[in-house]
């Protein structure tokens, strides 16, 4: 359908409203971050982002994100696959559980792990005797990040796999292809863009996670501070240059992710056009 062209006033009102909204809620704060980060000069800014603790926090964020993406890619594909390709009891329950992380508050997610692996848990003595530290350590942060980002990949894959149906897989299986061949040759090309898109969303969410991670981190300087936590600490310590410099790092990461997302959407829809 052709977009309406002759409703001038309405069009401009809407465009203005959107532009104002975006400026006030997005561009202004972003500009403010940059401005504040640079207020004490470029040198102070560079010093702040090359600060040992900032780098450590950034690295931990990247680590947690990579873990979350890796784990959730595997489980996301597995979950989406079994939910769409097989009929079994309890399908609804699994499907609902996948959404759990986005429906409960991240703080609660953090508390769940705190209770499961913390000192008061019956598991704690065993973990302790094996010398495994989860709470107030990196594994806890990774766990929390995985938990909150769990649905992103499988939710992207589910509609695509549902739409595809099982015919192509059945055809391949009838010709004697094994499960792995079928996945690689038939299913994967189909879900590739959705999967990458899910990965992008998952990455974005993992990088920004604050709540659940905050509960489990313990805020050990240079050890269990992710970027968002570190920013909060700096801010509360009145180190505005540091806080905003670290924020600008996150913003840069986010912009990279956004660009990736745009590119993926383009590529994905182009390919869909050809192969529909």
């Amino acid at each position, binding site marked *: 359908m052709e977009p309406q062209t002759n409703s001038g006033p309405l069009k401009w009102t809407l465009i203005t409203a959107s532009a104002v909204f975006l400026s006030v809620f997005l561009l202004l704060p972003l500009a403010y971050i940059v401005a504040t980060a640079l207020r004490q000069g470029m040198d102070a800014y560079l010093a702040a982002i090359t600060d040992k603790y900032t780098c450590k926090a950034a690295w931990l964020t990247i680590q947690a994100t990579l873990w979350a993406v890796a784990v959730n890619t595997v489980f996301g594909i597995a979950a989406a696959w079994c939910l769409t390709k097989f009929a079994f009891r309890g399908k609804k329950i699994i499907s609902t559980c996948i959404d759990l992380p986005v429906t409960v508050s991240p703080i609660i997610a953090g508390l769940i792990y705190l209770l499961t692996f913390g000192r008061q848990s019956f598991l704690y003595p065993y973990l302790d005797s094996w010398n495994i530290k989860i709470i107030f350590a990196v594994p806890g942060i990774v766990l929390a990040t995985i938990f909150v980002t769990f649905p992103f990949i499988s939710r992207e894959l589910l509609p695509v796999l549902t739409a595809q149906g099982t015919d192509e897989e*059945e055809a391949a299986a*009838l*010709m004697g*292809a094994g499960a792995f061949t079928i996945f690689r040759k*038939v299913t994967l*090309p*189909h879900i590739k863009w959705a999967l990458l898109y899910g990965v992008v969303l998952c990455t974005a969410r993992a990088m920004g996670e604050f709540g659940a991670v905050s509960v489990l981190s313990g805020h050990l300087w240079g050890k269990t501070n992710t970027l968002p936590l570190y920013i909060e600490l700096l801010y509360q310590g009145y180190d505005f240059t540091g806080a905003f410099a670290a924020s600008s790092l996150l913003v840069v990461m986010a912009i990279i992710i956004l660009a990736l997302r745009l590119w993926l959407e383009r590529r994905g829809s182009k390919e869909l056009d*050809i*192969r529909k």
Partner: protein
Amino acid sequence: MNEHAAYVELRNINKHFKDFHATRDVNIAIPRGQLAALLGPSGSGKTTILRMIAGLEQPDSGEILIGGRVVNNVPGSERGIGFVFQNYALFRYMTVFDNIAFGLRVKKAPETAIRERVTELLGLIGCSGLENRYPSQLSGGQRQRVAFARALAPNPQILLLDEPFAAIDAKVRLELRTWLREMITRLHITSIFVTHDQDEAIEVADEIIVTNKGRVEQTGSPQELYSHPSTPFVARFIGNSIPVKDYTRFRYFERFGPQTEAVLRPEFIGIFKKGEKLQYASSAEEGVVEDIIFRGSSLEIRVRLHDNLLSAIRSVNDPAIHVGEKVDVFIYRLFIIDGGRVTLAHNQSLKKESVVI
């Protein structure tokens, strides 16, 4: 039936989906090299039967035999089956070449042999030059042919086709089914295809298996089904059947059993203009023409007789008949539905006059 002649055989097959009894005591035997059609209304269990033969579904009870061997526990990929899916299920992210080559690649055939076979099949289906296209870049008919080639590539013993022409427009469909018939005869491959289009089944198949509500109603050649339907369902389903509540109201049809239901077909009915020469003029009855439908090569005349609206075919060369005209209607024969059985009854006057002559 000769047991050893059957190449694909189903014995007392039953299948449930949860509480739903989708296949009931099905017995089928198809000799080697035959082309059989599974014909039945939507939801009658045709696809389910086909999928069980292919090993895509497991029957709850009964045996499936291929070449005399019970294959219930043999995986579908080892049954020597090529399957053409209802919507083709071509691999949409692979080219035509890769689609056809898939089965051979899985079997680790040498690449030169694969190239040779694919090229041969592309020639066979008349799609040479299309090997680098994706399925979305093909016409419906071409997709259908590629699906056919893909199923044939690994040299299966049996070809199963689920509504192979359903998604194709009428004209191409006619061409394709003649083409498919020729292909299958040439390759001499035992084939079963599903359809709910009786014209398709009658034209293409050696043998038709009529399914209804999960049961096999009747198995036989198109002629047999046409002239000797063994169940009321088949009598009603095959041909353009016209249901009649009380056949005893027609002259020269004697009461046969307790029930009075019957099924007529257009070719059982003759319609004649008043005064037109008619051998059995004295035995004809008068009806009123209600509608005339132009069918291209013929006319369908709808005529009312004893509260029944009957359809008959008339040649465009016969003297013209008009709506509202009173005409002579002669019914040559009809199928009497008598409980679960069907009996063919002839117009008694035919017998009398032939005796006289």
